[in-house]
């Protein structure tokens, strides 16, 4: 029996994971990816205040970029203090399949090699940003695997369609979020910057105060997602060139 530790040690705050999933394929070059880079810098300048306002949750941030392949910017989720943004550059195809696989791995429990806690925890926030159709043919198959993860099911999911207008491409994103209500069409760089900031900041504020127990079917998780969605919708009214 290991009695080295004292009572009161090993207690951790619940972690709220904010995940950016960013398309940096060739078509994102220029204003689009520039706006994403700027938006994440904006978000990161505000996050310390949000972290200071919540004592119950520790906000952790991760970013997954995907083009020909998918890669985490940092191998481990970072605290607000430690997350430093380095600009992304555009190149290659839109391998959404690999992004979904990496996301599924992340959203597994730690005992299964993932980053999410085995016990307890807060439903994460996932923001997917892309400007086109996937170039990887099996993205739907990978999405099905991703959807089996409990952490994905309860996550607050947003998808930003950057300059996309085809119903086919919108359908890809609706399949990811599970509802058209959280798929946003964004037409300008300035709007994109504002939208990313509103979603990331508002959802972090709401969900970092949602550590209470949930009950059957995760009622409180669902309630918190709805509260966050409503607040985000309200703030988005003030942004031009956005449609949802």
């Amino acid at each position, binding site marked *: 029996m290991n009695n080295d530790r004292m009572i009161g040690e090993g*207690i951790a705050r619940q972690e709220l994971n904010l995940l950016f999933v960013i398309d940096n394929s060739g078509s994102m070059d220029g204003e689009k990816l520039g706006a994403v880079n700027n938006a994440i810098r904006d978000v990161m300048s505000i996050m310390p205040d949000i972290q200071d306002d919540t004592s119950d949750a520790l906000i952790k941030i991760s970013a997954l970029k995907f083009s020909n392949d998918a890669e985490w910017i940092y191998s481990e989720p970072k605290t607000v203090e430690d997350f430093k943004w380095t600009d992304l550059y555009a190149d290659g195809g839109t391998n959404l399949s690999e992004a979904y696989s990496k996301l599924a791995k992340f959203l597994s429990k730690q005992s299964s090699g993932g980053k999410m806690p085995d016990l307890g925890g807060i439903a994460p926030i996932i923001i997917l940003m892309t400007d086109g159709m996937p170039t990887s043919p099996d993205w739907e198959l990978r999405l099905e695997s991703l959807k089996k993860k*409990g952490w994905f099911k309860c996550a607050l999911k947003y998808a930003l369609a950057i300059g996309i207008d085809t119903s086919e491409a919108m359908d890809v994103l609706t399949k990811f979020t599970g509802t058209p209500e959280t798929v946003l069409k964004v037409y300008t760089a300035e709007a994109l910057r504002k939208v990313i900031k509103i979603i990331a900041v508002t959802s972090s504020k709401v969900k970092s105060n949602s550590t*209470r127990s949930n*009950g059957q079917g995760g009622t409180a998780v669902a309630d918190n997602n709805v509260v966050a969605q409503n607040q985000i919708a309200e703030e988005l009214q003030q942004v031009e060139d956005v449609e949802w």
Partner: protein
Amino acid sequence: MIDYFVKTAIGRSHVKNDIVCQDFSEVYHDEQRTIMAVCDGHGGEIYVRSDRGSKFACDAVMNVLKEKHHLLLYRVEKADFINRIKLEIMCEWNKLVEQDLSKHPISIKEVAHLNEDKQFRLKVNPTIAYGTTLNAVMVLGNRILCVSLGDGGLFGIKRGNVTPILFEDDEETVANITYSMCQEDAFKHLNAEIYDLSDFSTIFLCTDGVVNPYQNLDNFSKSFIFPVLKLFKEGNREKIDQFITDLGLTLGIGDDVSLGILSIDK
């Protein structure tokens, strides 16, 4: 010889939001048996009577298990016995809920803060208001009966190893989402098993407010179970008592906390 400890403490988020403690724990001990239960009423806003639900779950366990003669453990087929126990606990909990509802129907005031959809759900099925988990243990003769539904859990200790008992660990149950006594298929998720007295030297019964701050079983074992067990063996119950209070009010995740320790000295 059986030794035990049980404690429930309110969480700081409940104090802050002026919500009653929704956990409940209970112990019964006589010459023949020791029964212990810790139950966690859900925190979601629709569960407007989950504090009563968790008490009724403890009461249901006590009412059913106190009546069981130890010879049943040997004479009846194990699977039949387990199924009977599960069914009786479910029926007893539902009976207590129905009695409460008939004496005190859910009032408009209780549901005023809920949206129409939730009010409708409660109108159709008021049992939802009492949603709770259930974790219980009975030591009877040379057998240990364990019963569990929902999160938190039972942890058996033997020779320095911690074993989760009746744990439904999968990629589905995350973020404090738990099975509940109030759901229609609760019987399917109510697990029970009979163990020999020699299988465990101590059993910890915990609600999720105790377990979740530790994030994984290894950390929970090393940082909570072993240090608390050491204090328990030293007879330092006051310190455990104070720690559970602190875990609820300051150290933990803000949720209510309940801990039961049942030690079997053979």
